[in-house]
């Protein structure tokens, strides 16, 4: 019986993902209402449940793609992949107030540069504190603290060892997951309740997946504003980290 079911899931993976994610959403909203009296938003719980599924997948298979590495659930990989994620993010722009975006223009740009530089600086200090003293390793780990995509791009550009590149990816993944989980809980303390602060948030945090999930769990109306700036962050990081920031690091460390 289980055999037959798993074969059908395998053959129709994409459709299966709608069922599985739909049930996950339903359970999350149920938990939100029954266990937290609505204090914790349903989508915040869904994000955490998603990460738990990803952890189970990772432990079971040793792969990199969470639950999607379990053959039966491979369809989740398509539904949650970059293609549909970016497509749905684009769709959220439908109904956006263009004036709000223009109003946040300057803080948005400032947040992008500040976000990349501050994350890089902190990553560099931590790398140094853990005994990495050569400019190549420090730059790569620091770039990982920008995002888990900028880390390996930079590492490859400056010729870092694979051990350091893996470490930089780890730093980026930690950041992205923290942003997903923590955002809904601290949103009110950092004033994340209007389009301008959402754009600043997107620019400062930068990790597209973190920002996408963090805002979804906080207030879906803010998603397009945060996502808009966040999509520039990785490009800016990939531009600055292996060039200007690497040269500065090299000048300081000698």
């Amino acid at each position, binding site marked *: 019986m289980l055999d037959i079911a798993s074969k059908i899931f395998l053959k129709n993976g994409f459709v299966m993902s709608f069922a599985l994610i739909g049930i996950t*959403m339903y359970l999350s909203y149920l938990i939100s209402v029954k266990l937290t009296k609505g204090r914790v938003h349903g989508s915040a719980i*869904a994000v955490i449940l*998603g990460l738990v*599924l*990803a*952890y189970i997948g*990772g*432990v079971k298979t040793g792969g*990199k*793609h*969470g*639950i999607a590495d379990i053959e039966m659930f491979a369809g989740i990989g398509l539904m*949650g*992949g970059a293609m*549909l994620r*970016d497509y*749905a*993010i*684009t*769709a*959220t*722009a*439908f109904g*956006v107030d*263009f004036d709000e975006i223009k109003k946040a223009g300057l*803080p948005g740009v400032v947040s992008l540069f500040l*976000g990349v530089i*501050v*994350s890089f600086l*902190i*990553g560099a200090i*931590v790398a140094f504190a*853990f005994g990495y003293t050569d400019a190549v390793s420090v730059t790569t780990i620091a770039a990982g*603290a920008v995002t888990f995509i900028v880390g390996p*791009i930079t590492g490859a550009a400056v010729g870092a060892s694979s051990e350091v590149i*893996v*470490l*930089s990816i*780890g*730093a*980026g*993944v*930690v*950041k992205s997951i923290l942003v997903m989980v*923590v955002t809904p809980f601290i949103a009110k303390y*950092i*004033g994340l309740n209007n389009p301008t*602060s959402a754009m600043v948030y997107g620019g*400062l945090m930068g990790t*597209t*997946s973190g920002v*996408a999930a963090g805002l979804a769990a906080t207030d879906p109306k803010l*998603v*397009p504003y945060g*996502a808009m700036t966040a*999509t*520039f962050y990785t*490009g*800016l990081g990939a*531009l600055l980290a292996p060039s200007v920031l690497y040269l500065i690091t090299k000048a300081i460390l000698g």
Partner: protein
Amino acid sequence: MLIYGVTLLSVSFFAGLFLGDVIGKVIGINSNVGGVGIAMVILIMGVNYLTKRNKLSSKAQEGIAFWSGMYIPIVVAMTANQNVIAAVKGGPAAIIAGLLATVISFALIPFVSKIGKGKGGNFNKEKGVDNNA
């Protein structure tokens, strides 16, 4: 028709990604720069242009609204695909670097949000609009 909205979304999506790749090439990095953000702007402009001319039927708008509504479930599916093990196994250096970068970036949000607010406030006062409303 529903598909017209979905098509408008797809065309905007590809136009944005294409421009993002071109910008990446021009500044000499092997990465897309703001493709999705540009796609969003193109979609907003496209929707505005067509609605003003009464060319975007409510059915077509539903096509876009559907994908906008699928955003949260798609993001939940995305979280289920994350390499959580890499985060856990990254060791203390990776965890502390990621943690501090996140915490300090969060702490900066209220300060950067204030930039340009004075200017915006005056601008709105002239128009008699309360900025904080």
